[in-house]
């Protein structure tokens, strides 16, 4: 292939082609290219919210689906999420200014005793990629740390992650505490982590088990839709 064929001048692409190219560039994890494209669309007068949903969320959906289907793996998804974050960093202040619609808010953290945060970080990034506001508590969270964050952040969703057989039962400790305090039903509780499964999620009283970051996003969206429906019905 010759050099000329390879050269892609982002600013010369029309809107439709540029968005398609952004899908490609997110897929390839090209941060600088994504940042450039976001700036081009802003210059062309696109609303920040439209760039977020049509270009970034659209592109990350493709990445998420291929991750779910075992086509992409963690390294590729980390690169893609890094590129998305580059674009988000430009959009975030503008989104706040323009009062863009709020998709939902999530507090997420890995449970006490568990250092693993790869899966949790992926969920965090993919949720942000889907337009959610995410408060990440990091690793090794005791029940008190979750309670404090729920009180302070008032999220829609609580996400918990565990990668070890030795730490997964701690999710139940957290959920039991929420039940005791009578606040369990104030939140949608999603759980995830390699050793878990759907039955485990149900047994400990979570709303859903999410087998990977892409499923977490889909599940979160569907619970948010239900919540909105209930609110408008009520």
């Amino acid at each position, binding site marked *: 292939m010759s050099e000329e064929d390879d050269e892609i001048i982002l600013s010369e692409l029309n809107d439709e082609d540029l968005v398609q190219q952004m899908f490609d560039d997110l897929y390839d994890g090209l941060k600088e290219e994504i940042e450039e494209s976001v700036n081009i669309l802003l210059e062309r007068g696109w609303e920040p919210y439209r760039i977020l949903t049509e270009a970034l969320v659209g592109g990350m959906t493709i990445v998420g689906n291929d991750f779910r289907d075992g086509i992409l793996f963690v390294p*590729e998804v980390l690169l893609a999420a890094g590129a998305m974050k580059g674009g988000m960093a430009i959009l975030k202040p503008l989104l706040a200014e323009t009062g863009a619609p709020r998709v939902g808010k999530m507090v997420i953290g890995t449970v006490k005793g568990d250092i693993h945060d790869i899966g949790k970080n992926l969920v965090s990034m993919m949720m942000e990629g889907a337009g959610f506001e995410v408060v990440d508590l990091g690793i090794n969270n005791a029940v008190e740390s979750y309670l404090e964050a729920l009180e302070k952040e008032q999220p829609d969703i609580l996400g918990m992650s565990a990668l070890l057989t030795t730490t997964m039962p701690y999710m139940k400790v957290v959920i039991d505490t929420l039940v005791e305090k009578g606040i369990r039903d104030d939140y949608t509780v999603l759980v995830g982590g390699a*050793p878990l499964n759907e039955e485990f999620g149900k047994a400990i009283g979570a709303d859903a088990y999410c087998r990977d970051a892409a499923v977490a996003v889909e599940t979160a969206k569907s619970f948010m839709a239900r919540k909105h429906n209930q609110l408008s019905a009520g």
Partner: protein
Amino acid sequence: MTNALTRLLETRDWLLADGATGTNLFNMGLSSGDAPEMWNEEHPDRIKALYKGAVDAGSDLFLTNSFGGNASRLKLHGAEKRARELSRISAEIGRDVADAADHPVIVAGSVGPTGEIMEPMGSLTHATAVEIFHEQAEGLKEGGADVLWVETISAPEEYKAAAEAFALADMPWCGTMSFDTAGRTMMGLTSSGLVDLVGKIPNAPLAFGANCGVGASDLLRTILGFSARGPEVPVIAKGNAGIPKYVDGHIHYDGTPDLMADYACLARDCGATIIGGCCGTMPDHLQKMRAALETRPKGPRPTLDQITEALGGFSSASDGTDGKAPPARTTRRSRARG
């Protein structure tokens, strides 16, 4: 170089490794979230009981209670400075149990992943990873481990860093990865990819293979993937006893001892030499596995269908080694990059 494991492998067609550490310790009262390695010091009697459970059930080899005993993992319990010491104690207790056994038993010093992502995707540098593994390796060596045993690894870079650290400690080693994502490791490595990786490491392991992951079926598909490549290094199979379930406040794995006995024989038929369990595998399972391996003759290499018939279905249609995995999106730039 001669050592206890090499000598044992020369005299036997198969070896029975041990089962679960975490599941057993929970049954002895470990609380979720606590570091199991602290028990090496606080409850050496229980760690001794853990090892003895495997040895009395017929294991030829067991792993020490040091899976999370590296500085990176111990940090969240404020014990990052104690990696060497806690690892040493885990091996010392193991040495006592092995030496008192009525059959030759190998003490394998367990080394788990750091939990960090390595460069360039993450922040952990190769040098730091080697340093972390080296420190733990020296502790396990001091405690009298026969071999070092890195397990549940998903990144090729981390496997290589551990190997390098074990060379620095001048210790023989074994290494298994966890194939839990569509038949590959979380980082996307296939079974065939691990065979290639093992072939490139200067201080080759005494044995390599797979542990943990999804279920026994997936694990055996991975073992078939290794043996299809005809590796010279013996293959290790350490699969979970089924799928975890939450029963009456604790984790229970649904794989029965009889099922694990079938798994053990199938693992041997697939080409594994060192066969054991992982999460959920208790002494009852090991006993049945031992009896089955001793009494049933080695069979022909099973097909994938025979594996699913005996142990249940796979978690994904392809494991990335059959050319049937769905292709990645073709992007303009990646095409240009070739």
